[in-house]
């Protein structure tokens, strides 16, 4: 009971703000990064550069959201990248097979989303119902999903239909399509915060046994978290397909760990119980901005990964330390 004497009234100020909006430290880091980018390369704050940043990192934003929904209840999903790969391959192959027209694209997307849901359901069954350890169990399912992706599309390269990536990279009423997606995502997430399930997942993450004693259906709640995670992983796949315009059975491999990093950067506790999906979106953007910043300051190409890695590690540590300091 560290804050025993602190009353709600006195918890205004920064502490209160961070508590209500756990993504605030992430927002500050994001703004600082934006400013730094702008300082070194004014063009980087231009409309075109921002559009580029978003279309590249929209998939990671979605994937980070996906990861957040399992982290809320104290779980983790190391298969999000593999789900993304599988859905990417599935829709690209289906779109090609069905002729690549508008109807085919929509139908393929629907199948992709169903695939994501099914993958999430399997993860949920394995972790929540069968009670396997989340880290190793979702690693095993990630191998399974990668295998399925390879089955659907053994080698990378099948292109997505033109109509698909033109739409993703295109504009409507002078506004890039990805902005609509971001807006839609923002609205959906803002609404989702009010969902009963969100509160229940956070309560489970706080202390699963106490939530159980309170009469919450803990298994079902965790299961739903994994299903949501599968859904958003599939949406991430739709985005990455728009960005890369092709199918690649290994495209998501490296993204899983970035999704975890984005969640942590966004101020969500891996132990569960507190955090925000919005923070995870910011976390994904931070990762994007760090790599563009490393590029803009003119880091020699072979040093870029190292500097980026160090910067992410630093941001992760800083985020955790600041959040803890403020909350203490």
């Amino acid at each position: 009971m560290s804050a025993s004497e602190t009353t709600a009234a006195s918890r205004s100020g920064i502490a209160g703000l961070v508590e209500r909006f756990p993504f605030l430290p992430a927002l500050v880091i994001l703004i600082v990064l934006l400013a730094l980018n702008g300082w070194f390369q004014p063009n980087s704050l231009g409309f075109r550069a921002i559009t580029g940043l978003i279309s590249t990192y929209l998939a990671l934003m979605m994937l980070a959201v996906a990861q957040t929904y399992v982290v809320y209840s104290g779980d983790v999903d190391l298969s999000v990248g593999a789900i993304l790969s599988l859905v990417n391959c599935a829709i690209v192959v289906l779109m090609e097979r069905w002729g690549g027209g508008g109807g085919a694209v929509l139908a393929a997307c629907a199948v992709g989303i169903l695939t994501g849901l099914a993958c999430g359901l399997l993860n949920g069954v394995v972790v929540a119902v069968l009670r396997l350890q989340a880290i190793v169990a979702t690693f095993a399912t990630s191998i399974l999903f990668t295998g399925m992706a390879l089955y659907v599309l053994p080698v990378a390269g099948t292109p997505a239909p033109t109509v698909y990536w033109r739409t993703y990279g295109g504009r409507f009423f002078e506004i890039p399509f990805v902005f609509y997606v971001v807006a839609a995502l923002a609205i959906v997430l803002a609404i989702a915060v009010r969902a009963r399930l969100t509160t229940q997942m956070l309560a489970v993450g706080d202390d699963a046994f106490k939530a159980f004693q309170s009469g919450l259906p803990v298994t079902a709640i965790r299961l739903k978290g994994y299903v949501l995670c599968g859904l958003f992983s599939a949406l991430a796949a739709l985005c990455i397909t728009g960005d890369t315009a092709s199918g690649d059975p290994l495209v998501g491999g490296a993204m899983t760990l970035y999704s975890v990093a984005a969640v942590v950067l966004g101020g969500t506790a891996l132990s569960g119980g507190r955090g925000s999906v919005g923070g995870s979106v910011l976390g994904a953007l931070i990762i994007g901005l760090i790599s563009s910043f490393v590029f803009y300051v003119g880091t020699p190409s072979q040093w870029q990964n190292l500097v980026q890695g160090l910067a992410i590690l630093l941001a992760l540590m800083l985020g955790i330390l600041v959040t803890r300091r403020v909350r203490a």
Partner: protein
Amino acid sequence: MAHLSIRGARKAYGATIALSRGDFDLKEGEVHVLIGSNGSGKSTLCKIVAGSVRPDAGEVLINGKPVSIDGPRAARGLGIATFYQELSLAAHRTVAENIGLPELPAKGGIFVDRDRLKAVAERYISRFADVAGKGFSADTRVEHLREDQRQLVEIMKTLATEAPILIFDEPTSSLDRSQVERFFDVLRELKAQGRGIVFISHRMDEIFAIGDRVTVIRDGETVATSLISQTDPSAIIRQMVGEQGELAAADGAPPAAAAESSETVLAVTGLGGRGFANVSFEVGRGEIVGFGGLHGQGQSAVLRSIFGVSPASQGTIRLKGEERTIRSPREAIRNGLAYVSGDRGRDGVVHGRPILENVTPIHFLRNKLSVVRPGSLRERAAKPLSALKTRFAGYDQPVNALSGGNQQKIVIARWLIDRPDVLLLDDPTKGIDLQAKADLFALIRSLAAEGMGIVLYSSEDAELLANADRILVFNGGSVSRELKGADRTRYNLYHAAYEAA
């Protein structure tokens, strides 16, 4: 409304029998008190009804019909709501969310109906508004609340279910008098509405203030049920301790207070820190100093701060006359201190590990060992283990296979392979059986006779009266009275404990 009965409920955890025969009967419109010493099986009985513990045997009947309670959710469906002693709150959620958590009001089946949630929460908060203290509101997160305020939230959460059967497992342990009275007002209303209420408390005055009937549970068995109006505290205590307990207490005539003139091994002056202030006392060689008073009045906090767990912010500690600053348990151990916590599950037992590993860590540290020689360790551990009459199959047996009392003996034995100068006992007999208690106190007295200085905090007055040379009664974080010699009576102890409460 509903009528609840439990017949022959039984629950064992491995070798530990938590409940051997639970019979209980709750009528509508009554407050039925369940009383028994720590570890007697009250909570297990409650949790069986609450659905969070699966009984090995026995049945639960509601209105005469056998029901199966598969989990807390099923219990809720049957109209049973439970206040959990260890609380069932989500620390990072707000007061309102916690109150509504079991059945979050929904809009469209998907969204939380914030307005209704708030309205429900406010309805219950308003009942306690003037006694809840500063900073208590529907939007406060539970993690920022004081212990008593959290307990109020758990009470509200239980009430908000509007269940016909309410179980309160020690709901008042941290509440102050005004909060308790308000709570009792609410209970009386509920009673008038015909609800059945199970109430657990250790405070005799509360039991007589609110109860209609009382069932006593001892060593996992419900031994008697009587009408409150036809019994009195001493009769209940007799039922709680049983014949054997009476004997043990009478048996333990305190050793002569020869300690007076001897050398001081531990001297504490003006000690202050989180949960206690200005505590001073001395322990002589061969002396047993008791800490008494109601639970949670700073006794544990003082012991833990002396042991370096959370070092004191004020005051000095002298060991054998020399002033020491102890910043960690490691330093405390090096300085000849030993500390045994009653919460062996949290502070003592290295779960799932063999007895040998559980009994040796202090020996390693004090002798700066780096390589383990199991043969010689077994030899060294044998003496304290047999002095405590520990029953175990072998040193490779996992510690959790033992009964609670034997587990605690293992934990105590780890401190006795190399003799400490001062032994700090923090309610060491919590939840262990009578025989183990007797073995333990026999050893403690012989250790004192051999010259060890001992501080004994016990939540059971009888243990203090039977074993301590002097008793310091704690109240609100400091020593309010010292009982010596002939003053050490049950009456004086009881009186001093309740003085300011």
